[in-house]
């Protein structure tokens, strides 16, 4: 330490056993912390699960509607698919068919 002053600040001794306590604290922290890959896997699983839950119904409804329109355009009669249903709506054009596609358990009234 500095030796070129008349010391105002005396040199204090730290409490004994510091290194042992430090090692113990370091080791206890290491035991408690989960490995990084476990944290990453948990986060990824949560993200995927939330995406599945929120997007499942929408994806199925979109697929159902697309299929109905695609089949109808090819002259195929519309059929209910995968738990959904197509409710025919009125159309001003003779060569245009309009369908309301919804889930089979939906309580919403058609044509609204």
């Amino acid at each position: 330490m500095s030796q070129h002053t008349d010391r105002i600040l005396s040199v204090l001794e730290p409490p004994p056993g510091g290194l042992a306590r430090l090692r113990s604290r370091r080791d206890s922290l290491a035991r408690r912390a989960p490995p990084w890959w476990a944290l990453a896997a948990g986060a990824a699983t949560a993200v995927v699960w939330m995406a599945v839950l929120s997007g499942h119904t929408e994806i199925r409804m979109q697929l159902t509607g697309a299929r109905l329109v695609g089949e109808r355009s090819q002259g195929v009669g519309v059929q209910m698919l995968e738990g959904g249903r197509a409710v025919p709506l009125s159309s001003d054009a003779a060569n245009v068919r309009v369908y309301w596609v919804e889930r089979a358990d939906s309580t919403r009234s058609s044509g609204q």
Partner: protein
Amino acid sequence: MTRALGVSEAEWEALYRRLEKPLYNLAYRYVWNSQEAQDVLHDAFIELWARRDRLIASTADRYAWVTVLNLSRKRRRWSRAKRFLYGDDPLVSLAAPTTLEADAARAQEHASLRAAMEQLPEKLRSVLLLAEFSEMSYESISELLSIPLGTVASRRNLALRQLRSELNGEHSA
């Protein structure tokens, strides 16, 4: 063989053994509590341990000083609130007094020095403590604190003058 990057456990422990006393002395003059000063020191070395793969052994000293300085500053703010609520712990690191009078005199000296240190602005305190305890050159201190070299010497001298004035019972101008 010396690795370019990374600090081994043995190097980390050797660093602690070498720097424990000077770092403790710096931390103590911020928090004025022996246990808290050691906590600051250990917090810093836990950080060093967490970053050991990214450290370079030749600059680990400087990293330790910067970390302890920053943690001490933060802890000081918290310690001031605790002291207001719970009072102070007595200094435990002095040698056992031989008489009650010596104990009281030492306690008074400690209290006076502490009061004087508390009057120092942070920019003077940090330079003074690094100059007194770190064995770093003024060049190293100037790099560590990002201040000009001449400023290190002037702040240290000013800090010592203010401390002496406070301890002699005069208020600095």
